[in-house]
């Protein structure tokens, strides 16, 4: 069974990144190697422009589950963008043991 819209079947191998909360997306990022983050980034970034255009057909508050998962997957792309595009490491440089946790966020 596919988790994402049929038009984005090429992203199915990365469906594990369709995560509904920022906190869990961030935890996932920290659990991955740079090669894994790069692999996800390359696949998802290539489809970001087409994906946001595709998603515009839906009301944000009334989306089919497959479309919601695509939004979450692109939210994860945002989460991994700094490590891939700038730092070459999963953690924020010089951030040590500091945590900044989401305690409220709008659900998609």
């Amino acid at each position, binding site marked *: 069974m596919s988790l994402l819209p049929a038009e984005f079947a090429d992203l199915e191998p990365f469906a594990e990144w369709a995560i509904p909360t920022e906190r869990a997306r961030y935890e996932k990022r920290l659990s991955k190697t740079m090669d894994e983050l790069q692999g996800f980034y390359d696949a998802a970034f290539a489809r970001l422009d087409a994906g946001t*255009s595709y998603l515009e057909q839906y009301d944000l508050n009334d989306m089919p589950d497959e479309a919601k998962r695509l939004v979450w997957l692109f939210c994860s792309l945002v989460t991994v963008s700094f490590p891939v595009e700038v730092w070459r490491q999963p953690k924020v440089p010089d951030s040590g043991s500091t945590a900044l946790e989401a305690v409220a966020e709008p659900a998609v």
Partner: protein
Amino acid sequence: MPHFTKPAEGSWTEHYGLGTGPISYEDSISPAHYELERDAIFRRTWLNVGRVEQLPKRGSYFTKELDAARTSVVVLRDSEEQVRAFHNICRHRGNKLVWNDYPWEETSGVCRQFTCKYHGWRYNLQGECTFVQQEDEFFDLDKSDYGLAPVRAEVWEGFIFVNLDKEDTTPLHEYLGELGAGLAGYPFDKLTEVHRYRSEVKSNWKLYIDAFTEFYHAPVLHAKQAVADESRKLQQHGYEALAYKIDGPHGMVSSWGGMSPPKDLNMVKPIERVLRSGLFGPWDVPDLGLDELPPGLNPAQHPAWGMDSFLFFPNFMILVWKTNWVLTYHYWPTSYNTHIFEGTLYFAPPKNARERLAQEMAVVTFKEYGLQDSNTLEATQTMLESRAVTEFPLNDQEILLRLLHKTAHDYVEEYQGPKRETPVRVSAAS
């Protein structure tokens, strides 16, 4: 040579008469001084505890832990739609009235009345005691004498404040002064898409405010956040504010912000180009029906204006961005060298997934920067506590740090004794 005009005195610091000498950070490393601040500041000033959107209907409530002020409050909308606050304590034997699972964790919800978990005493939304378990067993007990202990609560532009001082009757709008008045009318109520972050920070509360009331650090500490060429340019240029304003204990800094959208797309990261968003917020600005800015924003009337950052003493900051979104910061002390930081981002509700993702980009960028800021504070706190060095120079772009530490000192001194002078309201001679 300044890029932006400074006051006739040659500096903002001299203009506001805050002194130019080095400052001591003993006020941030002394447990005894912190104990004084709790009573002198946190039990005697207006504290922002939330927004009216958190109380959408009758019976909506939330609790707020005010460790620094030695209490917890419950804030609610009563049966006449009024916002009220009470100390979160049962009148019978002092149990915390409203909590779930863990007594020290904040909670929220909707109810018709509050029932104490311990012996079942009940209170209505006006705080009146309405039920006493086995009332006949008590001795001449009159329920009307046992209402919840009220806390003054007032609302400014949708922000709910409480004041634990029973004697000071200064109304909230008067306390917020000229800077508060200058923001009146901003459509905060339209920014209902809220992301809130929380961090336990191992530093004195004032050190984080220091970090967020100066941008002198930004081109250096956050150098690795920008693309390499841009980072070099930012460091060479350094930071200068467009303007500073001070009124009483409160201050603001007005900043440029040409990054939203940037002049040159090569200045920003690839994903920012696609999502059209970044640190300065989404580039496509939502219409808030704002024909002109309230007079307190962009006080220099500069065309390069990007964002204004207000500190309302003691621990509440509001950042208003040109791109029609708002960020607030709160710093809640838990000891002389720890505090809880809250950062809350407020956007207009996104119309579609593209707008939602642009907001996500701004939110995540805020988090990446915040993580660096927090960790630096721990590094600062531990070395200040070494007392190896006891005096520190502050430059003109760090003027709001002087204001904060001076104001905090003034409140402590005033609290300590009548022989001392009351704090002088600092404002420009002009």
